[in-house]
């Protein structure tokens, strides 16, 4: 397929009017699913991710159990209606790979030794996609894990950086992703700046990579603050007056 040339940067602004280092709008809701042990709805621009955590619970089939630690199972799934063209339902090569990478992104923070022989199931459903779905999914999953009361060292925050029209920019949208030169999703523990996931599609020079990492680092700190604020707000009487954070208190019980 030959791509037609699109001008992605006009007058120093991107197509959606953002600056190079600007995130899309983020919206977080906690404990939106009544039957899950912890859940989170996360919006990153037009990406809509719904994460549900179940467990720790008994593992099936039994032979997968680990006598010493819990087994984390991460399931990334795009809804058939989430993309412009209908996405054929069910797991495919792409979603299996993303599930694997995302599990590895969250693994280092989960204190799995506390629940030997069990499994922790993380299901992330993408209801709408606009590039950067795996980062939205990881952000959502990280909050849902905390909300489920799973012992963790930290929260994980994630964002992508990319290159469009020769410029390194933060948080690509679908048009930029399709017509740009590179896309690099990063997941990190904001407090310690520990990178837990780093993937790259396309090419960066070494300098561009370093600029990109700086951008991602800064953005992850921003996202971390929002994630934290959303969790805190659920149990604080005075809800933080942050316009971007919408918090659903109560678990919808009768």
């Amino acid at each position, binding site marked *: 397929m030959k791509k037609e040339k699109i001008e992605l940067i006009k007058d120093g602004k991107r197509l959606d009017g953002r600056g190079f280092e600007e995130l899309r709008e983020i919206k977080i809701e906690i404990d939106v699913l009544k039957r899950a*042990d912890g859940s989170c709805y996360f919006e990153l621009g037009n990406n809509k991710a719904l994460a549900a955590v179940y467990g720790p619970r008994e593992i099936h089939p039994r032979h997968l159990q680990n*006598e010493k630690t819990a087994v984390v199972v991460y399931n990334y799934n795009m809804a058939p209606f989430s993309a412009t063209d209908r996405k054929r339902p069910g797991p495919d090569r792409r979603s299996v790979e993303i599930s694997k990478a995302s599990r590895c992104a969250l693994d280092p923070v989960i204190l799995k030794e506390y629940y030997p022989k069990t499994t922790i199931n993380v299901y992330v459903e993408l209801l709408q996609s606009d590039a950067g779905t795996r980062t939205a999914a990881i952000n959502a999953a990280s909050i849902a894990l905390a909300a489920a009361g799973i012992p963790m060292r930290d929260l994980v925050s994630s964002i992508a950086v990319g290159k469009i029209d020769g410029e390194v920019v933060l948080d690509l949208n679908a048009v930029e992703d399709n017509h740009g030169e590179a896309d690099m999703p990063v997941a990190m523990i904001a407090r310690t700046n520990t990178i837990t996931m780093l993937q790259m599609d396309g090419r960066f020079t070494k300098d561009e990579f370093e600029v990109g990492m700086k951008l991602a680092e800064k953005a992850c700190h921003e996202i971390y603050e929002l994630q934290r604020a959303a969790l805190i707000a659920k149990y604080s009487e005075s809800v933080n007056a942050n316009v971007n954070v919408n918090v659903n208190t109560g*678990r919808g019980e009768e």
Partner: protein
Amino acid sequence: MIGHHTMYKVVVPGDFISDDMDRAGVGTYVDGSKVYAMSYGIVITSDKEEKIKVAALSGKYMPGNGDVVIGKITAISFPYWIADIASPYDARLHSSEFEQIANRRIEFGEMSNYLDLDDLIVAKVLNVDALMRIDLTLREEFRMGTRGRLIEISHTKVPRIIGRNGSMIKMLKEKCNCFIFVAKNGRIWIEGSESGMELATRAVKIIANEAHTSGLTDRIANFLDSFEEKGTEKKGKEKKRKENRKNAIDRLIGIAKNKDEKRKNRTYKRW
């Protein structure tokens, strides 16, 4: 209260708590001689206690030695009953535990005569081993009746149901005129009149939903009082209708009790 000060604050995993690693208590971890929160919960800093702990706001129940739990029999595999105790792990109860009560040896195939599937037990956690095998022992001082309600809440809310020095549970028992037993795993057994059980159930649900707020005991007291007043306010037809219904229910309960009695007698004979 001079000198005693307790502080509560909501924290998320990874929040910095203290520079002094000797104060790391439950729900915290140490990284580079600093203390951080390990779970999403409320950090409790007290002048009285040296350790700072984080009380989780959610999460699964992990059995500890000596915990009294309410279990439900899910399987029988001689010589064990397997019980679900609202935890990621199943617990087991050895048949000899019941032999002491039945005062006779329980043979293979007979176990369901004593405790069948879906029966409830009040038991104490005897031992939890490294492989998370959980042994239970029956608690003798209290056995569950056949008429009552079981409600299940998160085990993290149990301390609020009990209240400081048992103040909350005491009030619930008095105002609802019910027998209430709160197990460590978040299961609550209520026995009493239909209306009393209903009231207690509602109160427990409110407590569980608002467990993280302060002044809860007073609010629950108000709730229970308002209910009492409402009950006396309604007069005339309404009252009569209620009375009739109550009588009818009592009659039904009487019949059921009779049946129960008969069933019990039958079991005794078999023993």
